[in-house]
Structure formats: C-alpha cells, structure tokens
C-alpha cells in the first residue's frame, strides 16, 4: 500500500518536472524500503542499497508538495532564450507559460497525468500532443515531450546497478547505472547518473540509445541553498551528444516550494487564459 501511494507521488512538471521525470519519477519499491538511512556513516557500502539511496535522495531534493518559479531556457540550436513561468503540483500536474520574447509570449504547456497539451495564442488553439509526437522537441528545445510528460518512475522502469566510484570535474562521485526492466516502455537502453559522494547531489546524467551509444547528457550545476534548506541545482544543461555542440540550458531564476496549489489551476482554461 505505502509503495503504491509513494509511487504515485513522484512525477514531474515544469522545471522540476524535467528533472524528476528523468531521474526519479515513480515509486519506492521494496528495495527502497530496505534502504539504509541516508548519509549515515558506514551505510555507503557498494551495493544496490547505496544506489537506491542515491536515487531517493535526489527525489527528496527535487520535489515537494507544490512549487512555482521562473526560468530561462536557452536553446543553442536556434540561439533563442525563452523566459517562462512554471507551476507544479505534485505528483503530476504542471503548467508552463512563456513570458518572453513577445513573439512567443502566451505560449503554454499543460500536463495533467500522462496527458500533455500545448497552447498557441496566435491561433488561439489548444492541441493535445499525440503519442506519435512524444519524442519531438518540447518548445523547440533538446528536451522531448516525453521528458516533460513521463510520469512513470525511473525506479519503476529501471533496475539500479551497484555504484562505481568515479569523479566529475574533480568532485568524487558515485556512478550509478540504471538498466530498463524487460517490460518497461522506455526510450533509453541505459541511464547513468553521477552523484557527488558527499551529499548525493546529482551532477551528470547520461542517456544511452538502443545501440548503447551516448545520445544525451544532462549536467547540473550552480547549486544554491533554498529557503527551506535544500541544496538545489539552478542550471541544467541538456547536451545533444549526437549533434556536436548542441544543447539546451535551463537556468532557474526563482524557485519556491509551496504547501499546495489549487488543482483547478491546472486546467485547459487556465492554459488558454494565462496568468
């Protein structure tokens, strides 16, 4: 029972959405409940318990009950920067609206459960993204619609492997490999995460395609302390490895975890009306 409830709590939206989606959407399995308490001396043994602890720690870092804030998205391919406002109600509702540039202002994206809609103010039309376009770029970026809308958990779809000691830019890390379970409907054949050994903060995430070739790489930097004491990454950079030099960077401008947001806020009506 607790597993199920917890499972449905993890999901994504907006900024956190991207992260969570990719990292830890989803539930704690039986394994998770056997996990030793985080950051306890001596618990850092090289077994899957450690890997589970790392993934779960991220989840706690990135999620809350609700959140809202502003972010910039720089898309290198088009050399464009979009400013967006986002609101998120966990587990699976989010609303994103473009504030600038003027030509795109009002464009929005709404997620409720597994469904994703977009709104184009110029033609005043809401469109639901069909499954066939899930791998297309979200708002022209290197993030896909699938990244944004996926609510199933990384822990539900992937098995964790024993972490390996590694390092990223001089920071000692644990390198955790996740492999999909046989029946999981996932895009990536392998996901690798590098988390700092001291506090398990995520630094790098790598996505491997069906040929086991590195396809995308996400780098988290600019960790800052939020009001509630969280150490939160303010810059996420998604690199498209297959097209050299191409990336999309999300820079969080402001970020606040809230107690709650009204559910009614996440509706097609508010997507159209704007705020």
């Amino acid at each position, binding site marked *: 029972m607790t597993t199920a409830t917890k499972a449905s709590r993890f999901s994504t939206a907006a900024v956190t959405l991207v992260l969570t989606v990719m990292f830890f959407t989803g539930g704690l399995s039986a394994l998770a409940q056997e996990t030793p308490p985080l950051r306890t001396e001596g618990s850092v043994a090289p077994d899957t318990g450690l890997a589970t602890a790392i993934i779960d720690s991220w989840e706690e870092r990135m999620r809350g009950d609700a959140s809202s804030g502003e972010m910039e998205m720089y*898309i290198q*391919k*088009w050399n*464009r920067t979009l400013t967006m406002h986002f609101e998120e109600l966990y587990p699976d509702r989010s609303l994103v609206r473009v504030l600038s540039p003027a*030509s*795109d202002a009002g*464009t929005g994206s709404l997620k409720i459960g597994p*469904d994703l*809609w*977009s709104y*184009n103010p*110029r*033609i005043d*039309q*809401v*469109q*639901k*993204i*069909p499954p*066939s*376009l899930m791998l*297309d*770029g979200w*708002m*022209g970026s290197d993030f896909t619609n699938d990244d944004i809308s996926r609510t199933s958990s990384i822990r539900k779809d992937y098995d964790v492997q024993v972490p390996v000691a590694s390092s990223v830019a001089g920071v000692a890390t644990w390198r955790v490999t996740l492999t999909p379970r046989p029946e999981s409907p996932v895009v990536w054949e392998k996901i690798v995460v590098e988390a700092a050994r001291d506090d398990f903060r995520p630094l790098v995430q790598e996505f491997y395609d069906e040929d086991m070739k590195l396809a995308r790489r996400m780098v988290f930097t600019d960790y800052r302390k939020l009001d509630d004491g969280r150490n939160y990454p303010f810059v996420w950079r998604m690199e498209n490895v297959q097209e050299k030099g191409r990336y999309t960077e999300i820079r969080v401008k402001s970020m606040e975890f809230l107690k709650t947001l009204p559910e009614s806020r996440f*509706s*097609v009506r508010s997507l*159209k009306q704007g705020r």
Partner: protein
Amino acid sequence: MLQFLKLCWRDLWRNRRRTILTGLVMTFSVTLLIFSTAIGDGAHEMMIRASTESFTGHGQIQHPSYRDDPVLENTIEQATIKSVRAGMSGVPGVKATAPRLITGGLATRKTPDQADPEAWKNMSSEGVVLLGVSPVDEATVSTLATSVVADDPKQRCADAYTAIDAEFGAPTASSTRACASLEAGFQGRECMLAARDACAGACTDPDAGCTSSDCEKRFADYCEPARFLAAVTPEPDEPWKGEAVIGTGLAMLLGVGVGDRLAVTSGTARGRSFGSIYRVTGLLKTGSLEINRQFVVTQHDKLSQGLEVPGAATQIVFAVDDLSEIDDIGARARTAVSGAGDLSVLTWKQITPDLDVFIKIDQGSMLVMLTMMVMVVAVLLANVVIMAGMERTREFGVRLAMGESPGRLTAGLITETMLLALLSGAIGAIVGESLVIYFSYVPIDFGMGEMESGGVVVNTALNTSFRLYGLVFSVLTVWLLALAGALVPAFRTRRLKPVEAIRFV
C-alpha cells in the same frame, strides 16, 4: 534475280494450303511475342506511374543534404529555384517542374471553448505532413490536384449548422429540414439564404464580441463544393490563415469535413512555433495510404512565409514525357542544373529504390517466361518449316533429275521461306501492334479492382505499352527461327539422290 524471286513466289503458291498454314504459324508467333513483351512493359510502366504520379513525381531536385537530414535548413532558396526551373525547361524530355515545401506539423480540428475537461482529454490531434504546393504547377507533375473526392452537399450542409451551433450558439432547429430539402447542391444563393436563416438568432448578446455577420461569414465557409486549392492564393499577406486539402483518412481521424477549420502548428526554420488556421476546401483520396492518412496540403507561398523560409522549396518535382528515357533525362537534368549550385537530381529509381528493384526482379522473371515462349515458337516453326520441306522431297527429286542444280534448289527453298516469313512477319506485326494499341486504351481488367502493394495502390487492370524493341525483337526472332528451320531441308536436298527422291512418299 527478279526472275528467281518470281519463281520462288510462284512456287510458294503452288500448294496454297501448306503455305497458308506455315504462314499462320509465323504470324501467330510474331503476334504472341509482340503482345507478351508489351504486356510486361505495360504492367511495369503502370506500376511506375501509379507510384510516382500520385506524389513523388518522375524525378526530384533537392538540396544535397535533404535526404539524410530532412529539415527546413536544407531547402532550396527562391533564387535558386528560379534558375533551376529555367534550366529544366530547356532539358529535352522534361515536361514540367513544380516546387514543394514539406515539413511536419501537429493538426487539430479548430475548436471553440469547451467547458467539459473530458472533451480536452479526448481531443484528437495528429502528427501530419504539411505540404506546400503551387496549385497550378502541381497539376502538371502529379495527380494530387485531381484526387479531391466529390463531396456530399447534404453532409456539408449539416456540418455548417453543427459548426455555427458550436461557435455562435445559433439555433439549429431547422437544419434537418433545410439540409434534407436540398436539391441543386449546397452553394450559391441557396446557401447564403440558409446562412441568414441559421444566424438570425446568433450573437444576440452584445458583450459576446461577435455579430451575426460573423456567423454568416463562417457559415459561408461551407457554401463551396469540394475543390483543390485556389490557383491564386487568397490573402497572401496572412500566412497564418489559408486553405488546405487533407487526406480522407486524416479527415476521419480528426473529424474534419469540407468547410471545417483545421489548426496546424509547426516549427519554423528559426525555431519559433508557427500556428495556422486552414479552411478545408477538399479531401484527398490518392493511391498512397500515407498521403491519405497524413497529408495536409496548402499553398506554397504562404507556408514558406510562415516557416520563415520565404519562397524556398524542399524539392522541385519534375515530370517527363517518356518514362523509359528517365535515366538519360536525369543525366541531362544534372548537367542543366549544375550551374545553379550544389543540388541533387534524383529520378524515381533513386527516390523509390524498392520499386526499381521490384521491377528489375519482375523483368527477370518475364525474361525467363519470354525465353520459354521463344523456345516453344522455335519448336513450332522448325516443325512446320522442316515438314513443308520434307513433303517436297519428290518434287525436288524430279527437279534434280531434270538437271536443276542442288545449289539452286537450296537457294530457292531458303528464299521461299524468307519471303513467307517476311509476309507473315508483317501481318503478325500489324495484328500484334493493333492489339497492343487497343489494349493501351482499353485495359485488360482482371476484375480484382485495386490492390495495395508496398504502400501504393495498384490497379489490377493491365495496360499494354508500345515499344519499338518489342516489335523488332519479335519479327527478328521469328525470321531467324524460320531461317534456321529452312536450313535443314535446304541442305538435305544437296545429299539427295534423284532416283531415291522420286520414290520418296
């Protein structure tokens, strides 16, 4: 010499029945060979036409990187298109060219506000191929423009009432009656009057921001029968609204009919989002299921503006006069456009290599069939010609006994056969080609209707097509076989002893 030929000719007709029988076999052989080559070539040409003319065209000119990376950056610019088309118009064998712009998009029926969240959850949107064409040019290279299906005026009428009811809250009580009593079709004055009636009660609330004339205008969208895109682009300065024809399958998936509006969003060449609203002017039903399920076809000039590549094209399609010369024409086109920049010229063989391979395999198996047919004809001819010679052994004996030289006998026999083969060949050619020409207009229908093969709908009615090589091959084969057959009795006469020959029965 002439004397000799005359003699041979008279010889031939001494036994009329034998000569006519032999001649008939030769005639039949020529006809058979001509017809079987023509039917094979006809089937192949039909297949190529069915596959290319519905959309891909006989050939295309593209940006060299487009095939590997089909994005808007890899398009041909407006200035280049001009010089390419000018260059192509001078290439012998090229009939016409047409520019096209292709991109992907997301299409939805244009919907007014819906209060019910379930309606949004269940709304259907489809990934589509957004194709910009220049309507006049397109008609010269493909059958897209003639693939618009005739619409049902009663359906269009009912759709008009449904649409204004949803958008303007106009009363629709009279719609069933109004649409049922339609006679001449739903257009012109009749439709305008219906619009006035239907919109009389619309937009009575002044705060709603609409007027009954808005409603009438919207209703009038349904007042035109199905057609392809207008030759002259309406409102060229407003790329975000226009007309479109869409595939029948797509129309069904989206719940869209003639007169309805379609919302399509797409990414521009600069990464912006481009949304547009199209009035659906017609539905396309082509031989390609892909087109029927995925295509939204609209005006090229507007689409290219909206996608921030004004005037640019993804491909310049060309049509040729004679498909059998496609390789040569492709080579000539390559030379003609080489001055316009780095472009790749592709013939249908490169665009649809599967079809090319399939046809090559089929040609191989037809060659085997033809070889077998030639063998049958050979046996038939040899039998007839040799037997005709054998039958005359007694006659030859008498002629030898009377002092005619064996050489003259041999020459006479061969000449006679050749004369006959010439005459029969001519008749056979006339009969065979008449059949070919007849069946090229009246297809041989196997009555199986249309069959889909590799994404292309193929009609099972077979057309023949005239080929000079088929004629030459057939006549020559029969001639050579007849000659070979005649050689046997001709040389036998050289060893003939008059006394024995005279006794031969």
